[in-house]
């Protein structure tokens, strides 16, 4: 038996499928691909499958990871090829490898935010710079365990790049805390930023897209988790 880590992208409309739907989608795709997945024991056996870091509904990604156990005798190349022909078009396997880093070491994730505001974004870089320099931005964070509480957004922001102005609007990369210890959903950061831009720089944002670009692990010696 061997546990493989599959790095995959989730793009297009697939961003709207929930975690549970994604699990079901992978299970059925593995069945279609006729790959020898290992099942758990017990009353209700299921494929052994663990996603490294949940992704919010509505967010696309090019760096998702899932660990799946297979019986021996199937190569990584074979897994990738067969699974890609069995998955729906908006989910693609990018690589298959040994899971040498534990998902427990994940501490952050980088996101690309695209804020749509037509060509009216020229003030945005300055305003965004001001925003990320603020010592404190109060936000409401909801978790299952702790319920609703007010926290400082900046405690979760690990980095933010200066925005680029494009024809559609503005684009910027931010890095947020992620993982089991400390986690923030990117849409909360995006909405706080949009609110600031609207109130302080008179930028009207009509919509936004978020794309996860990297998952980061090993806080002492940061590297890309894959």
């Amino acid at each position, binding site marked *: 038996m061997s546990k493989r880590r599959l790095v995959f992208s989730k793009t297009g409309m697939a961003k709207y499928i929930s975690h549970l*739907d994604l699990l079901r989608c992978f299970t*059925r795709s*593995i069945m*279609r691909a006729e790959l020898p997945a290992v099942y758990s024991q017990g009353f209700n056996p299921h494929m052994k499958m663990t996603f490294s870091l949940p992704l919010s509904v509505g967010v696309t990604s090019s760096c998702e990871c899932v660990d799946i156990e297979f019986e021996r005798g199937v190569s990584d190349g074979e897994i990738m090829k067969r699974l890609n022909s069995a998955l*729906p078009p908006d989910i693609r396997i990018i690589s298959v490898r040994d899971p040498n880093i534990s998902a427990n070491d994940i501490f952050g994730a980088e996101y690309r935010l695209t804020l749509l505001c037509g060509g009216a974004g020229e003030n945005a870089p300055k305003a965004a710079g001001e925003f990320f320099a603020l010592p404190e931005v109060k936000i409401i964070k909801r978790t299952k365990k702790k319920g609703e509480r007010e926290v400082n957004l900046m405690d979760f922001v690990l980095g933010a790049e200066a925005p680029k102005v494009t024809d559609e609007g503005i684009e910027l990369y931010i890095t947020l805390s992620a993982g089991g210890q400390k986690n923030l959903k990117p849409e909360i950061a995006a909405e706080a930023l949009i609110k600031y831009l609207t109130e302080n720089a008179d930028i009207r944002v009509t919509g936004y897209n978020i794309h996860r670009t990297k998952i980061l692990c090993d806080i002492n010696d940061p590297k890309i988790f894959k």
Partner: protein
Amino acid sequence: MRDYRTDYEDCLRRVQKPARYIGNEFGSVHKDKTDDMMSFAFCFPDVYEVGMSHLGMKILYHMLNEREDTVCERVFAPWDDMEKLMRERDIPLLSMESCAPVREFDIVGFTLQYEMSYSNVVNMLDLAGIPLRTRERGAGDPFVCCGGPCAYHAEPLAELVDFFILGEGEEVNGEIMDEYKKWCGSGKSRDDFLMSLVALGGIYVPKFYDVEFSDDNTIKRFEPNRPGVPKQVRKRIILDFDKCYAPEKLIVPFMETVHDRIMLELFRGCIRGCRFCQAGYIYRPVRERSVDRLCGIADGCIKNTGYEEMSLSSLSTSDYRELQELIDRLLGMTVDKRINLSLPSLRVDNFSMELMEKVQKVKKSGLTFAPEAGTQRLRDVINKNVIESDLIRTSRIAFGGGYNRIKLYFMLGLPTETYDDVKGIADLAKKVIDEGFFSIPPEERKGRSVSITVSTSFFVPKPFTPFQWEPQNLISEMEDKARFLKENIRSKKIVYNWHNSDISLLEAVFAKGDRRLSEVLITAHELGCKFDGWTDFFDYEKWLEAFRINNIDPAFYANRRIPYDEILPWDYADIGVPKSYLIKEHKRAYEEKTTPDCREKCGGCGAASFGGGVCFE
């Protein structure tokens, strides 16, 4: 043309279940439509998870898309939250695959599975921006058609629908596209196209018929209004069911749907002839698929879907002649792959425990039986061949085999029903426990305790059945009966549920109504009626208001006994079983005489005239 994608996508962020609207599932078909291709919008008048559970839609979707000259895309009813956003932003009803406005399609087809979806048909037409009434449509508008079981008689939609497809669509849908291709660009009128469809057979065009009403609201005259239009339209069926198209590449939804599994259709029709059951009459004669063909289909579906469950879906699955062999072979294909096999409609009288054990190798679940009536007398009236002793014997085997939950389905308000029959339901459920469970010595009982769920629905008289002339009980009568039954169920082991009586009344009205109800439907839509099959939406008061505004008495349709010689709104439809046979069966019901099933002894219902199926076995 405005591209709605960005706006539409933005709505998805704000709705409860965005996965309903995203499409792009594995198996969905995306074609680049070129100008010389025809387009068909396949509309299911309910939400995605209901529509995607429906086998008929999958068959016709894939079949049409196998044609190179046709694009078929799916359309579902947006849930309330989505509809609000779409209306706010001026987004019309869009197809799932290409986000194209439904009104741009050549043909817009609805499948009618239940009467309570009619208000959604109206709402979807409105949301699509298609003129609601056929007489308001012209060049540039699509043709609106309907198929499915309710389309055998859907006069209540006559003013809204250009043509109805009577019977099975597998052949005729392709023929319709062929005719459309010829018509398109020919410069001929819309009526010319419809006339070419009439010539195909199985197509009913309501505007080609004049209906005159008498002062007492009954139909005085129902006649074709132009040459070449037949007085009766005969349904289309596929005689050789083995050759009938069955898709093996099904769409596999992302979100969970109501029936989220492979559905294997063993046969069409039913040999039984229960007198209340419309499906049992309109799908005659029974036509089976061979075990080989079924295993071939199953194999393809397993490979192409990855589903973890397969169900054998037919009206009365255990009537399949080679069921044992089929199940053995299917188990051989599924057990290793951990695929569950489920049999949804077992009949009590030929229920075999051994069979059940086999099927449940993978998973054990509750059992469901439908005796439909509480006493033998009433079961004879409705021709439901369930015998009490069989039911009890079967329950004993099931309880002994470790099952501890049995569901029993009944109908209230059946013709000739008395309070003794109603009480019979309570007695029967109690006997199932007393004689089925407590007669097993305690040391042999597998489960500690058992529970029985009794569910009742109210009888809805349906066209094309021997009970089509029967009145439905008044709402007050229905409720009295349900209450009486509740009082008579005293065991804590029996749980009783019943269905809403207001909805049953509306079902009867729209099942048996005529074309004057088209305006009621439009009014009801204007008042906000939609999703009537969902209790959170169904608003009886609004419907009553719609009837009042149009000066129509729902009781005329639902609660009146119709004489045999009255012209019925659905007399135009020829399902292969003549009225004379239904009258004979109706009389036998009152004589409490049963009629044997097709295999025991042919009752001479007329369906043999199709020249195949069970009649020639």
